[in-house]
């Protein structure tokens, strides 16, 4: 791990991101089938990116604060990876949450590695949506915003009700 690196902080505070994620997961039509007995969230940080690891720790702490998606408990795990093949195989995870710090090409490769998996993919950086992540959190005008990639949602079997989509910025 390098002694210094670019600071990749969470623009939207961890607590607010956690609350928003739990809400969106609750509205997502296929979450119940995907999750099984618990909503398992995998926080994915770039290996060697110190601040991404710290952001993951903050988000993990917030997600583990006795939060539930409806009746389902939330389980959180953090991994550090360098490339897409290190991502876990299809299994029990319902949400892949990419921490800040990945470069555009890296995100594209990660998204390609999980193409067409039944997953809600989430990015802490709004730029990730343009690389094919389903949902991202943004901070604009001092308020949190939700950005959704419609095509990516379709590919990952993510269905968000129209009323909720109305609260998001949707890109194609």
């Amino acid at each position, binding site marked *: 791990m390098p002694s210094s690196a670019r600071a990749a902080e969470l623009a939207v505070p961890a607590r607010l991101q956690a609350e928003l994620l739990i809400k969106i997961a609750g509205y997502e039509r296929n979450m119940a089938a995907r999750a099984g007995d618990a909503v398992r969230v995998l926080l994915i940080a770039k290996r060697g990116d110190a601040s991404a690891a710290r952001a993951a720790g903050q988000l993990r702490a917030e997600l583990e604060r006795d939060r539930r998606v409806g009746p389902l408990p939330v389980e959180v795990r953090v991994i550090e990876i360098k490339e897409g093949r290190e991502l876990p195989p299809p299994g029990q995870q319902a949400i892949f949450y990419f921490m800040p710090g990945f470069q555009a090409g890296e995100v594209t490769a990660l998204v390609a590695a999980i193409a067409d998996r039944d997953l809600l993919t989430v990015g802490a950086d709004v730029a990730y949506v343009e690389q094919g992540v389903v949902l991202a959190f943004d901070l604009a005008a*001092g308020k949190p915003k939700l950005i959704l990639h419609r095509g990516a949602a379709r590919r990952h079997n993510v269905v968000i009700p129209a009323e909720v989509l109305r609260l998001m910025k949707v890109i194609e």
Partner: protein
Amino acid sequence: MMRRTAMSLTLAAAFAPAVVARAGEELTDLEALLDESVVSAASLTNESARTAPATSTVITSDELRRFGIRTLDQALNFLSLGVVTQDNGSAPEIGARGVHIAYDYGAHMLLLVDGHVMNEPWDGTAYFCRSAAVPFELIDHIEVVLGPGSVLYGSHAMLGVINVVTKSAKDYAGALVVAESELPISGRAALGFGVDFELGGERGELTLQVEHFVSEGPERTYGPQDYGADAVTGQPKRFSFSRPATGVWGGTARQTLFAEIPALYARARWADWTLALHAAESRRGTPWVGGGNFDDPQADERDRWLQLDLKRELALGSLATLTGRLYGDLYQYRQRVPAAAAEDCLEGQVGGCLYRLRGRSRWTGAELRLAADWTLDGRFVTLLGVDGRLRFVDSREAYRDVTTGVAIETQDYAIDEHLVAVYLEQQLHPWSSLALNAGARFDYDEVFGGHLSPRVAAAFTPVVDGTVKLLYAEAFRTLSAYERFYADPTWFIASPNLEPEVVRSVELSYEHRLGTVRLFAGGFFSHWSALVAERDATEAELAEAIAAGELESYVTAAGRYDNLTGLQSLGGNLAVHGSALARRLRYGLTFTAARTRTDDDAALVVAPSWFGNARVAYDLGGPAWPTLALAARVISSRLIDASSFGEARAPVQLELRGAVTGELPGLPELQVRLVASYALSDRTPYTIGPLGEPSEEFTRDETVPVDRFRTMVTVSYNLPL
């Protein structure tokens, strides 16, 4: 595979239940979360305003657009909680929660743009009108942090901290062209752009806007005030070089109500570097500055700024983030007052003079800040910072005899000073329902020595949607060079040994969320000490100043600044805001009341005892339909400053503002906005004109007039690049 996915999408959309509920049932919760304000000025960390260690509100760019807001003072008056501004005839001055210091020119409120301090050290001035010279289309949001904030920022943050945050390129994409006019008196043209780029494998962005504002008018009628004879010549006093001496001040002003403000703001980010540049000039006419001619086009003020701020953020292991910042500012102020009257000039200048005051400051500094997340989960975060600053201030005052052309310098000083500060802040979140924040900043300033500014805050969430906040904070203000060194041999003695002003404040508030509605109620008490004000010099001080050559030998009365008084302010804030009809209807209401008394149990002049605002906006929906917005602000009656009639008061003021904003059908890039504003009262609490003694003709104070009705049209075109 693709076929199966497509089928599942169709089926899912039709039959699959959500885990929690069908959309709509709890949508208000999500809407409320998306309306949660995120602030950074209170603790230098992005955090929810609910739990931030101060009462904070955020004014968004959407609100600025909806209500056709064009200046910071408009934004604060119509959209913020607890802050009020009033125009003193030269610039709007700011007050908060019952405290409003006349003619402080914003020196008790710290104004930041992207974290860069705008209050300059020569006079502490921060402008909240167009002279702030921040292109408004660039503003992402404005954070308004109420209460003492020296714990992280040092001097000036006595009433609070206002942080203007500019947009990122993602929110200011493409090119923007703006044309605007307050028909028929002003015009503004602006050009800006925002781009993302990649350089050396790193992401970057650039946002920039340049603009030019000019105004002329409106014509205003003052007086007539029959002043009488010039104390030097014994003849009727002259208020013009060209018109005959009548001893009468006033008439219709046509040449001194102008302004011209070019400005540029740019910010570039690349990798972990951020560079901001601000360059601006504000030149405006001054109908009255306490003396001089009436409606003379030479009477003006001019400010110039050049500001640079370079920042780098680095992660130090997984534990900490190091932020380094270098900044430097150049500031220049010039005031010209033409005076045809001998009594307004130096001895011997019987034909009149041109008074000229120049103040300049340069300051540069470096700040290092380390934020350590000891438990790697945000529950125990320590912030340690050190800030060092060098400042150079000089000033010169001269009277030029208009007959001989000879200028006599009456003041000339130059000072070099340094400041070193260390601050420490500890955030602690022992449970999910409790956020604690404690910190202190120690400033060592060459002017007054050391000063410690502590703050302790606790935010407790006893129920999911309710937060109780309790906090104690202190702040101080280093006296400006002007306050310490201003002197004039005809009437004013310098006071170089003034103590810093100090405020201590305690507040308790409760915020509750009911669906998309937020309710806020809070109470506060603040104690201000060592406030600087002007007083008459004593006989002994006069004699001493004359003996030292600081005053002319014939002077029999003079003024000086002193740490004169303290004051206490006790009051409360209420606020309600929210949205309905699928967020198409937005509304807000704030109210502040305070009882403020000086140590002598006197009310504070110009300070309103209550004020508030209300606003509603409705988006008719669809690209072809406009947004309608209506806002109002009200201020209680307040004592007139320097009144000649005892405790005369300016009446309650109600200001209304309506705006319609929409796109042209078939041309979504072109946005048009129409704004109309109206003020009920034509009087402010600031007196104007030379008369001081009541007489048969002078039966009530003449005060700075209000521009009661104004319309504005804005056309902007956003071109994608």
